């Protein structure tokens, strides 16, 4: 805890990293993710704070967060709860208001994003003074645990090349396709159409310079699934520099983020909107 503050190699850089953790029903995962964050920040010696933005979880995530605050200190764990579930973008704005770091790290609190990659993110950022560093599942040692072949096929970046091909064939043969193929395929369509210069568009494990995130969040209008994609596409449009770090994504809750028909439609709308405006 706070007793080992002296003579850390990375303390003196003056940089501070605020980790934004939007939570909803993460009672079991929150203590674990916080423990891991404290462990890896402690080892690497970077200055940090963790901001928990709980959207009125009925399972009492907030109580758990309060206890963690007692364990790790109020300077390390900050609570910015909101009354009900609102958008991700507003969660970032809300959390950032009180963030004292000059860098913001956003990640999921469900343990699919491992804090061990954060020091790598920071290193990468320093290497090229990047405006944002994005975790990618599709490059280098990056990958995913917990997806079967079908899921891999659907989720992996280049499976979406398949979609792109099918997209053209549709004009000739119009074969029926499962909706998930459509939705994930649309993701690659985004790669081909938008060429955003990042291999993982929908990943949400990223490090931003604070002022960069502020300006991006201001401009991003999408919700849900498209939001992460819009952030990185707009970043490229605004000539921000993007670094990438391969991450392993451990999908413990199998079947997470299933896309329904409505989401596919809003995804397609978001994609076309980005296509026409960026």
């Amino acid at each position, binding site marked *: 805890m706070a007793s080992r503050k002296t003579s850390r190699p990375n303390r003196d850089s003056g940089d501070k990293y605020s980790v934004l953790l939007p939570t909803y029903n993460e009672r079991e995962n929150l203590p674990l993710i916080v423990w891991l964050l404290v462990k890896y920040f402690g080892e690497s010696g970077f200055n940090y704070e963790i901001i928990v933005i709980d959207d009125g979880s009925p399972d009492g995530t907030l109580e758990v967060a309060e206890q963690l605050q007692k364990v790790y200190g109020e300077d390390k764990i900050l609570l910015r709860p909101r009354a009900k579930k609102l958008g991700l973008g507003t969660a970032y704005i809300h959390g950032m208001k009180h963030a004292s770091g000059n860098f913001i790290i956003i990640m999921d609190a469900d343990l699919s994003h491992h804090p061990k990659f954060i020091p790598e993110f920071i290193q990468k950022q320093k290497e090229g003074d990047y405006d944002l560093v994005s975790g990618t599942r599709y490059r280098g040692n990056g990958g995913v645990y917990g997806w079967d072949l079908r899921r891999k*096929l659907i989720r992996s970046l280049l499976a979406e090349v398949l979609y792109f091909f099918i997209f053209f064939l549709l004009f000739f043969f119009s074969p029926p396709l499962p909706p998930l193929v459509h939705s994930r395929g649309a993701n690659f369509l985004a790669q081909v159409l938008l060429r955003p210069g990042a291999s993982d568009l929908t990943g949400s494990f990223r490090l931003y310079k604070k002022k960069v995130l502020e300006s991006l969040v201001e401009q991003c209008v999408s919700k849900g699934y498209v939001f992460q994609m819009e952030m990185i596409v707009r970043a490229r449009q605004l000539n921000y520099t993007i670094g990438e770090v391969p991450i392993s994504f451990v999908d413990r809750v199998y079947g997470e983020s299933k896309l329904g028909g409505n989401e596919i439609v809003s995804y397609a709308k978001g994609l076309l909107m980005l296509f026409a405006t960026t």
Partner: protein
Amino acid sequence: MTKLLQWLFGVSLLGALWALVTFDLLDLSLPQTYREVAWPMPFYLLISFGCYSLATVGYRVATFNDCEEAAKELQEQIKEAKEDLRRKDTAEFSSCAGRRSLVECSATFEEICSLF
């Protein structure tokens, strides 16, 4: 220039070039063979792009990183974290509802729910 305009620009450029050769718009009196090759070219391009895509997809899916070790490491760290939190918890305060430790809160919650 938006991506949409870039694409329109690119496609119309290629389309114009194709039409130029296929229909001999400038009266260049190109040999007949040129026109015969150019005419089905868009279709060929489409098919070869599709084949390329399928090959790449097959390769990438087959070599997609499964991260078994990352999952194992996480499981072990979760165990370690739970033990450590339990220790910290009992040391610092008597915790959740005054009797349960932090990591057992979820159990308490489920018990309460099951009462109803």
